[in-house]
């Protein structure tokens, strides 16, 4: 716990320094607010718009959580299917990688044309962001189970499903969690991108309105909230990982 605090302390110091430099420069050079607002102005705006902002915030949290769960679930299921059917994996794996080369921001308007302005196209976008890291991490995890453990299980007469449930699945958890962490950060971004293309509410909507009326402070409020939210998601997954994997040697998080 102490280590986390001291690490967090150093990062906080860097952040504070950065904000201080930013504040000083905007004041000294007298940069107009619509171009680059000072951090203090952003905080002031943040407090002022809070009641208006809250529903947008809640909508985005809900959307990213739903999308995250569906995306990661889909990624995990895909990995399990591909792992248990090696022939299918050979055939499908290249497409899995190709799916990551689809420029999602370009795809978004198309999805609206196909699926309308409802929740479905938004979930599809977040899923496209989230499923890949989880799927690849899980596939690697299943495959990279230590050889001698697999050998013992086979010699002791484990069936294919026992091999998967008792060895490959628990053994791949560390790997799956690194995928989940990456996806956690992506899910908020995916949610905001999906809100740009058309939504009733959400941080993405708030942002579009603010930027089209040159209310740059509001844009920055949105950016900071998005960053904080991503970080929060990420931390939640880290906590979950710590709880589920008490068995890991403590030396692992030494860095």
């Amino acid at each position, binding site marked *: 716990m102490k280590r986390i605090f001291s690490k967090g302390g150093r990062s906080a110091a860097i952040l504070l320094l950065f904000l201080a430099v930013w504040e000083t420069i905007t004041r000294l050079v007298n940069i107009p607010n619509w171009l680059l607002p000072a951090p203090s102005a952003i905080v002031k705006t943040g407090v002022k718009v809070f009641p208006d902002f809250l529903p947008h915030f809640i909508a985005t949290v809900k959307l990213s959580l739903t999308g995250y769960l569906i995306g990661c679930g889909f990624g995990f299921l895909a990995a399990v299917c591909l792992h248990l059917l090696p022939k299918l994996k050979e055939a499908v794996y290249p497409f899995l990688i190709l799916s990551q080369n689809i420029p999602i921001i370009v795809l978004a308007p198309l999805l609206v044309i196909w699926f309308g302005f409802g929740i479905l196209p938004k979930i599809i976008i977040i899923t496209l962001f989230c499923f890949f890291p989880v799927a690849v991490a899980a596939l690697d995890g299943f495959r990279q189970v230590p050889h001698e453990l697999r050998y013992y299980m*086979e*010699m*002791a*007469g484990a069936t294919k499903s026992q091999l998967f449930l*008792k060895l490959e699945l*628990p053994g791949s958890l560390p790997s799956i969690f690194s995928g989940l962490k990456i996806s956690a950060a992506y899910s908020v971004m995916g949610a905001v991108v999906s809100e740009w293309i058309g939504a009733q509410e959400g941080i993405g909507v708030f942002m579009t309105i603010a930027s089209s009326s040159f209310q740059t402070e509001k844009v920055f409020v949105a950016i900071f909230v998005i960053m904080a939210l991503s970080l929060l998601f990420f931390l939640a997954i880290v906590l979950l990982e710590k709880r589920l*994997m008490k068995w890991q040697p403590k030396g692992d998080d030494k860095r």
Partner: protein
Amino acid sequence: MTHLEVKHVYKSFEDKPVIQDLSFSLQKGEFVSILGPSGSGKSTLFHLIGGIIVPDSGEIVLDGKNITGQKGHVSFMPQHPSLLPWRNLLDNVLLGQELTGKREVEKARSMLAAAGLEGHEKSYPHQLSGGMQQRASFLRALISPQSLMCLDEPFSALDEFTRLEMQKWLISIWEQYRRTVLFITHNIEEALFLSDRILIFSERPARMLADISVPFPRPRQSSLFLESEFFDWKRNIYEILRGEKTTGF
């Protein structure tokens, strides 16, 4: 009563013969070591008995049933402890039972206690020493429902002192339970100290050079290592291994 019978087994990999016409049998409750130079196909023999590879010809018979190419008929202790890192010691010991039978938690607890691992039931493998991990690995094989135990050089990765401790420990536990054991080793002393019989294998392709009955009475003490008869046997086996002799005394 014959427990395991290996009948005229041949196996080659990519046209290179690894095992050639190998036949032997184990009686119920016997501790038999297979001694041979490294790379002599001892491990291949275990894979054959374990059923993860199939012989080119010949058969493996357990309790009168042909088990050639069938998995799950032996309980196994590999060279490395191979405990699952996410399971505590108790759940690791129960793993072998889980795969082919029923969990007997109380039995496992009392075995752990008897093995000097009391209080470590909830510990994870990485928190224990190599010797303790190997004990747990042996208990996992011992508590498994299969009647034949196969031990594949289980102490070769341990340091000299721990190995001696483990050999004494193993023999005392085994003398209680008297399970049929097939034990692979390349250590002559280890084979002599532990076994009822020693099968000596040649270099690749593996043939049986000799089948020796070890005369030392049980229960065996570590003082045996210092007796002159023990040295005579050691020399005898060494000469067989080098091809200077073809039979025992």
